[in-house]
């Protein structure tokens, strides 16, 4: 299996190590390596690697760069809040901080190209330099219309042996500008198959257990989770989380390492339970115990009023909140297009005075309109339980939306003995 990676000009030993570090990605790594050619040869100007999350894109590129000790600059598009930062990082890692400090305050693309050329004429490339753009290159595309096309043919612009590698989770087609540009070479990383996942996961074996034991554990784990989750990172997390449970019987002396069936029996219900919280990470475990949020008494009623205002049509307020409204049946004010549930449509915005009007009619005691009532409204906005929409201008009749769920508001209403369902148009 090893030795699959072969490319003249690189150290044999190193190539061997690389292929050991990249199980199930030999094909892709080999492809990339042959694209790169020998160290001193010019490489294709730009390579676009795409594939789903955790398909090993950055892993493969990083291992190649690090292990083969190629000159490279890795930039993160998220981190580069301005292009200046991107330029700086590239110059910094190729030519040191002196070069980076040559950049003017807000450098343009041509500043970058100029300085790059100047530097590379002093320190010409002995081998191909690589710029690896890690994660979300779509930010590059959106930052500046010229940036991406320029990067794709940077080799030509700076007349240096440099190659740009873009890693992306989405396909190239979404990047191509409508004016057309230099087409990079595309390289696809397919998802791992179940067997491959098993092979990769089994690599992180626990030091105090045998490789066989661990891989039987991985087998069981994949059997349970593979149908819902194929993300390598997530699976690895799950593996780490549940392993101690798996070893329990062995540690307690109740089962032998080889007794797979017994171990399976022991772990299976546990994993099934964990299944419900895949993707939720730790937080979820304590979540149910804490969904209850404590609020001051009037804040609760303000929130209830906001909920009612968000989910009831304003026309119906009279029906719910005027004491002697006579007999208005639902059909009387049912409009045709309102047959759909308001809850399906989501919360609607409402003005402040409607909120207060409803508040004063639902709260059971007389409440003075004090400053603290109003400041509670802004507190609710800070807590993200209400959302203020449009402008910040308080004088200009602000509008709000209620951002809590029916479950949440029902729980709140119960604590103040308010039967909210009775006041909701949808449940009439």
């Amino acid at each position, binding site marked *: 299996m090893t030795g699959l990676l072969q490319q003249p000009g690189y150290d044999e030993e190193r190539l061997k190590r690389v292929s050991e570090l990249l199980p199930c990605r030999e094909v892709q790594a080999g492809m990339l390596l042959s694209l790169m050619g020998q160290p001193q040869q010019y490489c294709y100007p730009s390579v676009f690697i795409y594939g789903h*999350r955790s398909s090993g894109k950055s892993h493969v590129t990083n291992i190649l760069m690090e292990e083969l000790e190629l000159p490279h600059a890795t930039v*993160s598009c*998220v*981190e*580069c*809040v*301005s292009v*200046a*930062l991107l330029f*700086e*990082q590239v110059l910094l890692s190729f030519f040191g901080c002196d070069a980076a400090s040559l950049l003017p305050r807000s450098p343009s693309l041509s500043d970058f190209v100029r300085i790059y050329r100047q530097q590379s004429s002093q320190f010409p490339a002995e081998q191909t330099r690589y710029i690896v753009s*890690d*994660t979300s290159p779509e930010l590059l595309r959106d930052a500046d219309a010229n940036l991406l096309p320029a990067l794709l043919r940077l080799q030509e612009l700076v007349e240096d042996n440099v190659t740009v590698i873009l890693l992306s989770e989405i396909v190239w087609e979404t990047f191509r500008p409508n004016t057309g540009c230099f087409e990079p070479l595309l390289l696809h990383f397919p998802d791992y198959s179940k067997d491959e996942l098993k092979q990769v996961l089994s690599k*992180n074996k*626990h030091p*105090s257990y045998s490789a066989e034991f661990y891989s039987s554990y991985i087998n069981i784990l994949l059997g349970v989770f593979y149908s819902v989750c194929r993300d390598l*990172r*997530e699976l*690895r*997390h799950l*593996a*780490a*989380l549940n*392993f*101690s449970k798996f070893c329990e019987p062995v540690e307690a002396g109740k089962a032998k390492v080889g007794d797979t069936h017994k171990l399976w029996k022991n772990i299976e219900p546990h994993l099934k339970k964990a299944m419900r919280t895949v*993707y*939720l*990470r*730790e*937080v*979820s475990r*304590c*979540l149910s115990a*804490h*969904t*209850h*949020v*404590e*609020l*001051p*008494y*009037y*804040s609760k009623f303000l929130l209830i009023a906001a909920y009612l205002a968000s989910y009831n049509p304003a026309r119906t307020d009279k029906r719910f909140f005027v004491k002697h409204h006579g007999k208005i049946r639902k059909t009387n004010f049912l409009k045709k297009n309102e047959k759909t549930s308001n809850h399906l449509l989501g919360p609607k915005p409402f003005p402040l*005075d409607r909120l207060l*009007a409803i508040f004063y009619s639902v709260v059971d005691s007389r409440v*003075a*309109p*004090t*400053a*603290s*009532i109003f400041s*509670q409204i802004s*507190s609710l906005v*800070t*807590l*993200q*339980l209400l959302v203020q929409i449009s402008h910040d201008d308080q*004088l*200009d*009749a602000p509008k709000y939306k209620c951002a809590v769920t029916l479950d949440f508001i029902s729980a709140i209403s119960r604590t103040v003995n308010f039967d909210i369902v009775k006041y909701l148009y949808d449940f009439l």
Partner: protein
Amino acid sequence: MATSSVSKGCFVFKPSAKKKKKTLDLESYFTDGCEDARSSELRFELCQDLWDQIKTETEILQDELNRKVLDSLLEFTKKCSSIRHHSDWTSQMRASEIPTAALILGVNVTDHDMTFQSLSELLQTSVTPHVASVQAKECGALKHLMKKVLERLMDTVVAVGDDDDDEVEEETEQHHRSVHCSLTTLCDWYSKKTKKSSSGTPGKKRSSLVVNEQQEPPVVIVFKDLEAFNPRVLQDFILVCSRYVQRLPLMFIFGIATAPSTIQHMLPHSVSSLLCIELFQSLSCSQHLTTVIEKLILTHSFPFKLNGKVMQVLVGIFLYHDFSVKNFIKGLQLALLEHFYSQPLSVLCCRKEKALLNLKHLRHDDLERVRQLPSFRRFVEKQEIEEQEKLRTDDSHLKNVCQKLMKDLHKYHKCYYPILRCLHTLTSSLPRYPLGKQIRELHLICLEKNVWEAEEYQSAVNLLKMLAKDELISLLQKCAEILQPIRSTQMKSACVQLEELLSKFQQLDAPATDQSTASEENFTSPVKNLPKKTDLFQLQKTLLESRRSRKKSPFEALRNEALDFIDTLVKSHLSPPESQPLYEVCYYSSSAAVRRHLNAAPRTSIQAALSSPYHYLQNESLKSDDGTVSNSAPDICIAYKLHLECGRLINLYDWLEAYSTVISAAEGTDPDSDGFGKVDEVKHARFIRAVAELEFLGFIKSTKQKTDHVARLTWGGC
């Protein structure tokens, strides 16, 4: 300032004794307008002392309360930083995740500052010097967040490291040159920092890899108010940070006001999977309040007291409006200040010895004030005629009597609180809490009236009579424990009696014949078998029936004896403070003032000013009995009054016409003359000004819905 120089020029004036003036200021505010300077100085001093006491006590309390959660947080940070080095398999598998503590703090955001303050202090002293706290409002974009984090981290170190000044200079300079710079800068800075502290000779890079946790302290970033952060910014920041975890031992602390699910609402899975989150729950704010009340209010060692109404206002603001313990203490401070400021006799509101001393120095005016006190007048009326006369005229006799009264007041407090606690212990676990779940509720009842006359008290006693033996005994034991440490003769004897009762209960057990135990079991069963939600009436009926159907067992007799004993204790010690002569000295009672200061109603006062200007202007011509606005009121009041009669949209011209008519009437123009109600330039201008003022106050605004109209922004009010 004047100089003796004749020429123009610059003169330097040294700020002469400014400091002295400033300290004086506070006091002079206090003493301003008081006729007796000495007494007010004294009061100021007392007030300051008490406030200092409150401050230190609450700080200690805060520390104690937070200790548990903070300790576990510290433990967590320490664990996280140590794991990075000599780690087991599980943590190695998760090394790429950023350890994150989600700290659930509750919605009382105003109180969080104190918690974070002590948290970062603790972290800095015992875990790592590298702590940066950020708030949402400073971090509108990733750039700003990054900048804040870098600045805080590097600056904290700048402030600490005095020994290598030029180094620091260089660092800050470099960092100022590229503030927009990335975490790479931070990494470099960090490795420089840690290398320097790890005393090893430079150059031996490899060997210094074997570092221990002290040399690589984690870098902690605290997000004080997670909910308020822009999710986008937070996500990006976490993504960026996760690229550096290998080089930089980062750690996050999220301050969450609502619920942990916020994290899931804000962060998509791709981001939250980069974190290794652990939850921490801080004490709930109502528990916090309970301890504060316990420490500051329900104790005889703190001489200043609140009466029932004030207490109600403060607790009400807490429960109904803000849940903020900080504001509660602010309220207490306000009451304290007001009391010492407005009540000259508050010189007596201090420790017993001091109060007795101050009493000796009371002047004639003050003694007159004592005579005016309602509680004292009630006391006088109960005396014999001769004595009454003496109290009214003889100052020194009055002083002597007051000595005794003050002592009595202190004694009263010394007994009141322990007995209150006993009663609370007995009743707080009864079904449906007839006397309240929290001790503050019971305290409020006791402040208002004779608790033993309350219906709730009767039902509580009835319920107590239905307790099983062991339950009753354990409750009584707790009461004895409460009374034990009190240094007062009355309480001592009460405690002794209680112990006697308890030992009698014990003896009941000893010769336990089969028959008696059986009957006891029989007895306890009806209560036990009752469904939880029986109403009191039902319970009483069962009780009566069971009582009639059987003769008293020795247990029952003893139980009644015990409860009677408790009852006498309550009756003799839990009378409301109003019954105590001179209670006004210690009790602050102006609940309206407190409410006005703490729970202002700006809109109500603006409306009051506009609809009845007499209320504020006190001008006789504005007085009107029927609530109407007189024609001679200020323009804005008239405009306001007229606008109340309009609907959502107001026609400006109609409004002007109406206004002009009113004004003409006020000017006394003959209603039949031509000029009546005519709009002249001056009226027009006055009207426009009034409208502009109303707009400024937020009652109306211009609208595009209809030309020449303005929109009303308030509803009702007519």
